[in-house]
């Protein structure tokens, strides 16, 4: 049983290594984060080397071999159109990675500037942006993405845009909160008093402080993005066949759950491991960079 108390007003001057080096060392020691990083690496390599790992087209139907159990020829079995699930899972990593990057890109592109402006300038601008953010956040979970998909239509590009936009409010809130607290710091006041232009303050003082939570959120966001996109795919409203997307594969595999459960099982494992990787890495980053910004 531990009883913990840290003595107050007690500090130790640490060694003079650079901040980055220390953080890197801490990160490497964090086994979970390391594991996450490895998972991500595996996915990235799979995505890049897909044609090498699985020669041939993953989407070409081969009806004679429909719904086969896992075997030597097809290590993960085949789906209803006779395509190798292994191949589709491998190529699916490309799709998922693309989605992960695209989604976060959209979120950052729109969310960060809006959050900075909202937090730093305050006033009517802040009010307006906040009300819009509230409205967007009033859609629980994937509903926002669903609604957007309903408007924009299905397919890979629209999936990325829809899920990306559903991430924007999160970034706005995050960046705004950070900007708000940094804005109150004395050094910002000092900079303003000396006559520094707003733009410079934003870029040189506020943005660097925001980098930490943004980085953490980005890693977690990539995982979330993959999940959301897979959810849309599962419902038939995301990436469309024949493009191999894990969620969509799950969706179509659902019909065969009773006599060919492998069709739905393996893509799901792929999603799980990918998201796990991003979550572990994100958690690790958070532990290292700033334990304040917890979930």
């Amino acid at each position: 049983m531990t009883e913990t108390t840290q003595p107050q007003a007690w500090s130790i001057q640490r060694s003079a290594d650079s901040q980055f080096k220390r953080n890197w060392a801490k990160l490497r020691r964090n086994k979970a984060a390391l594991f996450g990083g490895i998972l991500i690496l595996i996915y990235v390599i799979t995505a890049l080397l897909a044609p090498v790992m699985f020669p041939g087209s993953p989407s070409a139907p081969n009806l004679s071999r429909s719904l086969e159990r896992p075997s030597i020829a097809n290590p993960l079995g085949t789906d209803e159109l006779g395509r190798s699930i292994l191949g589709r899972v491998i190529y699916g990593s490309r799709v998922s990675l693309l989605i992960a990057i695209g989604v976060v890109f959209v979120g950052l592109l729109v969310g960060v500037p809006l959050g900075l402006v909202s937090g730093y300038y305050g006033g009517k601008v802040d009010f307006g942006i906040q009300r819009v953010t509230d409205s967007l956040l009033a859609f629980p979970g994937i509903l926002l993405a669903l609604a957007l998909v309903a408007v924009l239509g299905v397919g890979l590009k629209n999936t990325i845009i829809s899920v990306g936009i559903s991430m924007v409010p999160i970034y706005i809130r995050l960046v705004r909160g950070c900007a708000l607290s940094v804005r109150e710091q004395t050094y910002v006041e000092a900079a303003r008093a000396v006559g520094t232009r707003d733009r410079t303050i934003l870029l040189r003082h506020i943005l660097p402080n925001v980098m930490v939570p943004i980085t953490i959120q980005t890693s977690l966001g990539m995982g979330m993005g993959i999940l959301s996109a897979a959810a849309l795919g599962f419902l038939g409203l995301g990436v469309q066949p024949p493009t191999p997307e894990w969620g969509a594969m799950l969706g179509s595999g659902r019909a065969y759950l009773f006599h060919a459960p492998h069709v739905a099982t393996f893509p799901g494992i792929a999603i799980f491991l990918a998201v796990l990787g991003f979550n572990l890495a994100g958690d690790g980053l958070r532990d290292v960079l700033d334990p304040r910004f917890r979930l």
Partner: protein
Amino acid sequence: MKQESLLSIINLRTRFHIYEGMVTAVDGINLDVYRGETLGVVGESGCGKSVTALSILRLLASPPAEIQGTILFENVNLLDLNLDEIRRIRGNAISMVFQEPMTSLNPVLTIGEQISEAIRLHQGVARQEAWSKAVEMLQMVQIPSPDMRVHEYPHQLSGGMRQRAMIAMALSCHPRLLLADEPTTALDVTIQAQIVDLMERLKEEFDTSIVLITHNLGLIAEMAKRVLVMYMGKVVEEASVEDLFQEPLHPYTQGLLESIPWIGKKLKTGRRQLQEIPGMVPSLLEMPEGCRFHPRCSRVMNICSKEEPPLVQKGGRRVLCWLWA
């Protein structure tokens, strides 16, 4: 006639395992507290005075902390007791008052509840009775309208009142020893004076000994009878208050006293300037060789950087310095 000591700390060493290595916060200190006296422990932040107090009540997490030595309280070694036994002592025979009353009081419990829970626990009385005793305590610490205040929450009280409430909480079971860790540091100067008066009065009333931990020399001068000066985990000087202020032996103590600002004070050079001890307290991870104070000492000698000084007895005083060896 030598008084019997209430608390005797013998060769206490408290260390912490941290990432960069092992840090010794308290390195072999000895101290005695006698009945009815106020012992002052003075030093800069990080010298180990708070850790000493926390070690007495064993409030440090056991890894990463490692405590060695002997702490005799009424002839029982506190470090030998198991957790249940030490809990019976906490808040009961030995109590502690902390520096920050705002964060040291639980914000979601009423003052009355926080005081009476200790009474209920140690004196085995029923809720009602404990509650009225809590009201009595609040009265004793001179909080107005105690029967109303007792239902209030910490955030509804002012800083001074919170500290009084903490004192009430600590003294509620009439402890024989009170560990006061910077009890006035977080308060306004005018309130400080009130709290000092209060503590003196209560000490008389309850016949409680006090270990007063602070970096405020003025407070020591007012309240303490004897003083210990600590630096980097060691006791560098021990004397009565009068002796310490009139004739400080250790260069560190001299430096501390000289750095107290006086209106109109002039340096030996004739200039009006704040006197300071040069340098900074080194990191506990990089302790100087020999005497720990030697890099900052104005009277440093050759031997100081090579060997640790011995503890020298001089009259009723003790000093850890080569100058007096």
